[in-house]
């Protein structure tokens, strides 16, 4: 092992009511690529924010070249040679590519005139290094998402960081771009840069990383151990504390069940083409695909948020046009559990009861549209009870509940509304394993009672657990369909095969 550039020793971070990290350690060695793994909510982002100075640890210490150090903000970490490629888009959309890449350089001074020619020349160097053929004077908002991601990497490189954090850098890259990126990372490693690589794709981690730290529920499941001899299943076991287990649920046959939702040759202005999709009564159809494949967009088009401009949509055998979301909910009884529950699914500053009841207000309103808590409570409360939402009272503010309980409420809301088709988008992101299993059972029960469910998830075990049929989407088209046999290895291979067949073509 080479010398240790950066170390976090026994760090903890507490938020009101949550221990995000407890006594976590990690060592980053010169000239190596270190994987940071963990499920959603395991504390990866918190650890990254500690390393980059966004948060300060409540306990423990950070060491740079063996010396204790304190970061009071991102600037300090940056000055210490720690660069980050963030998961979210962190570019200024109206600025040029070059100015975005070199923004850190100008952050120190306020009145030294900016020399754009110099900036573009400098930025070009880093773009060339990534093999990215983009004019540095072009506006960032004119780039595709994948190119923006590469610009972010160029931005981090431009700091000549000794430690480079990459948070899901390949999430929006094509296989081709990923290969180019990996070649670059290897080159940087040989130049002595120490990298921390966060990814959900275990294949990538195995192919490029030298050592690994795994977090589970805010603790070290393993700390800075060598990747040598670790197989995929070992990593999974470290991440979730057991091997991937698919519940032994009986296979169900829906060939005879009446279709609830039928899409025929549907196209949307967003780019969907030739979408043929059927969801039958009581069936769970999984829609798998990489991020950006157009799954959420399809769901929102079905909900009437985006228009459908080709093909036909049938509900219970009748051709319909869903003009807006209110129509979808009240007339057609379709529910949508958003992947982004904080932004789109719930009104965090409102109470449990208000959130659970929002979709039925119209139905339970009395004369003159008068709405009483009592009438909402009568309808909504049984479902909140049934889902075992842990809340001190129905008047609790939803924002104060845990992620799992929040998600239960966004499901309860649609149960109360009595939908016939429920579209569930990434239902268990950021939710602990126990609640996750519970939500899975819940969705299964719901389908057993006759609700048709369209499940969108990027979580392969979840998909294989729940779905009766799996439809794979790639680049706004359907790539194929698989009958779910619940054999994890065979199914995941089949899904990946469908995705890559299209990507390679």
């Amino acid at each position, binding site marked *: 092992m080479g010398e240790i550039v950066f170390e976090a020793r026994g760090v903890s971070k507490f938020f009101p009511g949550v221990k995000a990290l407890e006594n976590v350690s990690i060592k980053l060695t010169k000239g190596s690529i270190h994987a940071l793994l963990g499920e959603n909510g395991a504390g990866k982002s918190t650890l990254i924010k500690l390393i*980059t100075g*966004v948060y300060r640890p409540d306990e423990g210490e950070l060491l740079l070249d063996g010396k204790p150090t304190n970061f009071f903000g*991102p*600037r300090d970490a*940056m000055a210490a040679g720690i660069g*980050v490629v*963030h998961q*979210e*888009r*962190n*570019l*200024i*959309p*109206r*600025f040029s590519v070059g*100015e975005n890449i070199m*923004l*850190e350089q*100008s*952050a*120190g*001074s*306020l*009145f*030294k*005139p*900016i020399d754009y020619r110099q900036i573009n020349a400098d930025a070009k160097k880093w773009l060339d290094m990534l093999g990215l053929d983009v004019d540095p004077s072009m506006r960032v*908002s*004119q*780039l*595709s998402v994948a190119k923006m991601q590469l610009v972010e990497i160029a*931005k981090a490189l431009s700091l000549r960081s000794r430690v480079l954090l990459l948070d899901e850098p390949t999430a929006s890259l094509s296989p081709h771009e990923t290969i180019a990126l990996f070649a670059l990372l290897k080159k940087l490693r040989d130049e002595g840069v120490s990298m921390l690589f966060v990814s959900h794709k275990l294949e990538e981690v195995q192919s490029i990383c030298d050592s690994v730290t795994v977090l589970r529920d805010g603790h070290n499941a393993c700390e800075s151990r060598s990747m040598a001899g670790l197989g995929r299943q070992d990593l999974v076991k470290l991440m979730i504390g057991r091997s991937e287990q698919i519940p032994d649920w009986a296979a169900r046959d829906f060939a005879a069940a009446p279709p609830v939702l039928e899409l025929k040759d549907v196209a949307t202005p967003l*780019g969907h083409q030739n979408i043929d999709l059927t969801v039958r009564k009581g069936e769970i159809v999984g829609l798998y695909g990489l991020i950006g494949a157009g799954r959420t967009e399809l769901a929102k088009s079905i909900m009437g948020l985006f228009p459908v401009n080709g093909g036909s949509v049938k509900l219970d055998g009748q051709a319909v046009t869903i003009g807006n979301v209110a129509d979808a909910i009240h007339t057609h009884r379709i529910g949508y559990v958003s992947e982004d529950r904080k932004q789109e699914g719930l009104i965090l500053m409102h109470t449990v009861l208000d959130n659970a009841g929002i979709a039925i207000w119209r139905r339970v309103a009395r004369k003159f549209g008068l709405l009483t808590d009592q009438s909402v409570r009568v309808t909504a409360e049984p479902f909140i009870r049934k889902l075992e939402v842990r809340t001190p009272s129905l008047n609790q503010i939803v924002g104060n509940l845990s992620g799992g309980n929040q998600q239960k409420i966004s499901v309860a809301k649609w149960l109360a509304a009595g939908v016939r088709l429920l579209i569930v988008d990434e239902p268990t992101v950021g939710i602990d394993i126990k609640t996750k299993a519970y939500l899975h059972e819940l969705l299964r029960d719901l389908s057993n009672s006759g609700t048709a469910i369209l499940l969108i998830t990027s979580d392969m075990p979840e998909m294989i657990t729940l779905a009766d049929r799996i439809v794979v989407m790639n680049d706004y088209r359907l790539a194929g369909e698989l009958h779910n046999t619940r054999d994890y290895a065979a199914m995941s291979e089949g899904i990946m095969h469908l995705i890559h067949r299209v990507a390679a073509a």
Partner: protein
Amino acid sequence: MQSLWRADWFGPLVVTVVAIIFIAAFNPSFLSPLNIQVLLLAISVNMLIAFSQMIIIAIGQMNLSVGAIGGLAAISFAGMMEVWGLPGPVAAVLALLIGVVAGFFNGFFIAWTGISAFVITLASLSIFKGLNLAVTRAQPFYGVLESVKAFGATTFLGPLPWLLIPAAIAFVLTWYLLNRLPLGRHILAVGGNAHAAELSGISVPRTIMAAHAISGLLAALAGICLVARLQIGQPTIGDDWLILSFAAPVIGGAVLAGGHVSTVATVLGVAIVAIITQALVLFHIDPFLVQVVLGALILWAVGVNRWREVRVARSLKRI
């Protein structure tokens, strides 16, 4: 042609030129030296008011107290000359300082408390206006120095008012700030994506405070120029700036969410408002209609901006 059409200043420039030709064709006195002088006087002061708001729009906020700061600086300027007998330049510098402090006060509370700029500047609007009335008892200061009055009333090179000079300087400096200086780029970066700006090492609170201080400075300068133009220190100076301060930058393509403003197009926005106001006078249209026209102009400008945005978004989709 495509890039010309996309430039912020192109649309307003076309409107300005067409409006001038159209009005002059119906009423040749529109281009008389006197009328040009009146127009330029209005444009000079209004430009400063518009820039004062534009800086805050750039950072993605709004400043309701632009007029109150300008008014406070204006009566301070006149009052210091009348009551303390200070020479014009000294009084002007002190009044500008009051503007900077008032703006900084806004910025400090916004950055420190995280309360929206709307609420903070609504409160400070009341505070600054209250101070103004407490000092003046709602009576104007008449003791404005002759040199200041002359500066506000005389012209050079024919119809060019001297007041054009401070406005032109402010224009050049504002343009330079927003396009060439790191501070100005930081303001736009924070307006475009505050999170990204912070992660790039830009201090968001400091940038917010600086933007508000600059806004206060420009508002104070506008107040001082208005004292010179009106020849007295009116306590009501600034009361009617609010709509104009938003109208001109918005006509100039500013994005109210922040991150994008155009200095040049904002000047054209000011010119359009001045020309139309003037035209209403020339055609003997009820002056009270000016407000209606101004409101319609804002709606039109916002509509055009939105339409352009949608078009650009469509043409860029899925490259």
